[in-house]
């Protein structure tokens, strides 16, 4: 393998416009894309959902556009958001509140707060106060995974969401409609699976930051459009002339809710790490495999949640398997090491870490860990940590 050389490629003419679009969507904090979509038909409604996971199929089936709200990243100046949160609370809710009080969430007609952590939970109440009159719903995801117990409860929750969103759109969610939505999302899941497979196989074709931006576009675009977008991107990178660097393969865990700034992702790669698997925007791929398209669609969605999710910090680990699952994943993805990277002050992610570390230590898998915030602006420490990690593997591995 060659010496570390920074890849200074002129962006491929096919990739460039796609990336430009994804970047524009990423920067679209005013939700102009949603406004545009809504303006095509005055009866259209859009529903925001917070991390980590919400059954977007249900919102879609009720005729509304599900829009992911994952904070303001490093793009918003926090002026009023800070006034709602003490310094020891993670950054995400303050930028979400900043977006809300500055009117940038106005294109949304309602909000879903899935049970993720205490901060998101309490944020649901704050929204009730800050945006009176808007539909704000706390979506309790089951922590009991028995179909008759947790399953029934969850189906009841989903039906409540369907009914409430349906009131806004005037559409009643029939089984037919819901099934159609499942089909649409299955198509999207298939495209994303393909993208992830390609990235794992040839990570130089799908840089982490690009992968992220492509995924992120799905938090704003209608699902059908996003699926096309992912397919276009896949075709473009497959045809590109990108070539490999002297980088190690890593897997990133812990970033399931608050999103790292894109510059941080680039930093990781520049420091010599190919991220071949991660949990950024976890909600977009929490259920990686297809949801059953036949039978009762409510049950199908519920089953998929109860038994088809990848382990994540905000879902109770009933079978004590997350450590093993991580180790298995490391082997499957043939990575050289793991980066445990959690948002500062994120209790779920940080409390998970000792358990994940123990599993990695036991399996003798190298790992490194650090914290970040969505608005982290200085990457020196992260660069050095990731770089040293990559150095150690490169110097001592087979490279």
């Amino acid at each position, binding site marked *: 393998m060659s010496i570390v050389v920074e890849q200074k490629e002129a962006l491929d003419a096919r990739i460039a416009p796609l990336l430009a679009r994804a970047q524009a969507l990423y920067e679209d904090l005013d939700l102009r894309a949603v406004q545009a979509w809504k303006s095509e038909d005055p009866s259209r409604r859009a529903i925001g959902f917070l991390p980590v996971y919400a059954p977007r199929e249900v919102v879609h089936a009720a005729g509304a556009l599900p829009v992911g709200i994952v904070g303001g990243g490093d793009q918003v100046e926090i*002026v009023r958001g*800070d006034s709602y949160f003490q310094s020891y609370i993670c950054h995400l809710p303050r930028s979400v509140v900043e977006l809300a009080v500055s009117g940038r969430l106005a294109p949304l007609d309602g909000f879903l707060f899935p049970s993720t952590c205490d901060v998101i939970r309490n944020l649901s109440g704050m929204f009730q106060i800050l945006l009176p009159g808007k539909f704000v719903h706390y979506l309790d995801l089951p922590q009991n995974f028995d179909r008759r117990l947790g399953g029934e409860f969850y189906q009841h929750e989903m039906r409540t969401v369907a009914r409430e969103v349906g009131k806004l759109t005037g559409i009643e969610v029939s089984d037919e409609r819901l099934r159609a939505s499942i089909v649409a999302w299955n198509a999207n899941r298939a495209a994303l699976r393909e993208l992830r497979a390609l990235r794992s196989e040839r990570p130089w074709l799908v840089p982490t930051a690009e992968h992220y931006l492509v995924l992120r576009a799905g938090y704003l675009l209608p699902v059908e459009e996003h699926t096309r977008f992912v397919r276009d991107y896949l075709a473009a990178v497959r045809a590109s002339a990108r070539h490999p660097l002297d980088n190690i393969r890593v897997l990133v865990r812990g970033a399931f809710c608050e999103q790292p700034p894109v510059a941080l992702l680039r930093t990781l790669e520049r420091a010599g790490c190919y991220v071949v698997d991660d949990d950024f925007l976890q909600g977009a791929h929490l259920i990686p495999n297809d949801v059953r398209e036949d039978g009762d669609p409510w049950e199908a969605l519920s089953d998929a949640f109860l038994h088809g999710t990848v382990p994540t910090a905000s879902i109770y680990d009933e079978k004590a398997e997350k450590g093993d699952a991580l180790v298995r994943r490391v082997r499957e993805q043939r990575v050289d090491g793991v980066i445990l990277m959690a948002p500062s002050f994120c209790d779920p992610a940080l409390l998970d870490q000792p358990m994940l570390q123990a599993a990695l230590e036991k399996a003798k898998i190298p790992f490194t860990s650090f914290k970040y915030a969505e608005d982290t*602006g200085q990457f020196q420490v992260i660069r050095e940590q990731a770089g040293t990690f990559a150095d150690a593997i490169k110097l001592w591995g087979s490279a």
Partner: protein
Amino acid sequence: MECLIGIDLGSTTTKAVVLDGEGRLVGRGITNSRSNYDVAAKVAKSEALINVRFEMLKRALREEARLGETLASFEASLLAGYRLECFLGSLRRLEAHCRRDLENARFEDDRPAMQEALQRIFAGVEASARRVFEPGSVARSDFFRDLAGSSYVELAAQVARAGGPSFDRLVGVYDRNIIPVENETETRSFEELLLEAFAHVPAPLRGDERAIERLLREVSTRNFEVVRTVGTGYGRVRLPFPKDCIRSEILCHGLGAHLMFPATRTVLDIGGQDTKAIQIDDQGVVTSFQMNDRCAAGCGRYLGYIADEMNIGLHELGPMAMQARRRVKINSTCTVFAGAEFRDRLAAGQSREDIVAGLHRAIILRAMSLLARSGGIANEFTFTGGVAKNPAAVRALREVAEENYGKLTLNIAPDSIYTGAIGAATFALRDVLAAARQS
């Protein structure tokens, strides 16, 4: 005369004001509180009282001395002479300390050279002081430490370049000895000082010398009765005052701002080492507040540190930032890291002006989050503390505030640095009035 005193023992500067029985502001005094808090309080207070005497003196001169059109020049000259005398007094004490320091064993090898160097430096400092204290010239700072320090450092560099002892060694002597000097107070009485100052006044301005001397003596010895003193500020717990003579700096700042601008509802005070956001009602009563300290990021010292890094005066920083063309977002929170980022950005080709403006915006953004936490910004909005003297900080504040809270009246008073002290003195007055009502 009966008077009331308010002392604001700030983290950087200590301010004192004197009110007369009617609540009129009749005197102000300021000093740096770096050293001993007791001394700082004492100095600020005596400065304020001296300020009162000067005001009295002016009135007396105007009414009695019959100096005609030379009156204004006479006053200016007398004041400058007074300042110079005080400065020279401190300078002599500093020199004595430095010379004593040279007896230390560490100067065994180069004592004569050091002695000679000090000789030259102190002569130079004195000469430049005489220029600085010309009537009408503007000083870089009000404080002995800053004035003497900057000219000492300049001269030390010259001496070192000319083959004298090393710069580090010379400056080391200064750094070690300035601290005790700051903790000492002037030994001469006001009367003595005033008479010496009078000696500096050029002959053509002096008028009827004997009459004026009598007047100077008379005003110098007039009696004041300080009825009550209330202390406040960062260092208030260290003041040797009974508990009921100490008020929280939050309340004092709130009240002080209210007195200067009765329609104020929100007050932002950015001092040297802490920042406060205060909401008050229509009587100046604090309804909520937030403050931060212990971290220089977001306080005045942040800008001071940057100015030091750039080797320029603090007062030059704001005007430089006013020249900015582009908006730069500073990534580092920590002051020291911001300093490093400043150098990185310069190296990357960004303009000094733009970066400095970015730094101003950064400190204002930190203040905004404090303001937001205290309840936002309500009209009218008053900005106090030392940083309110910085035009770029004021501009950034106005910009960000209006972007987020709409059009506002932003008040900045010339006396804004005394806000806390004015509040404290007013509390003293109110206490006295309340006690009078009771009995």
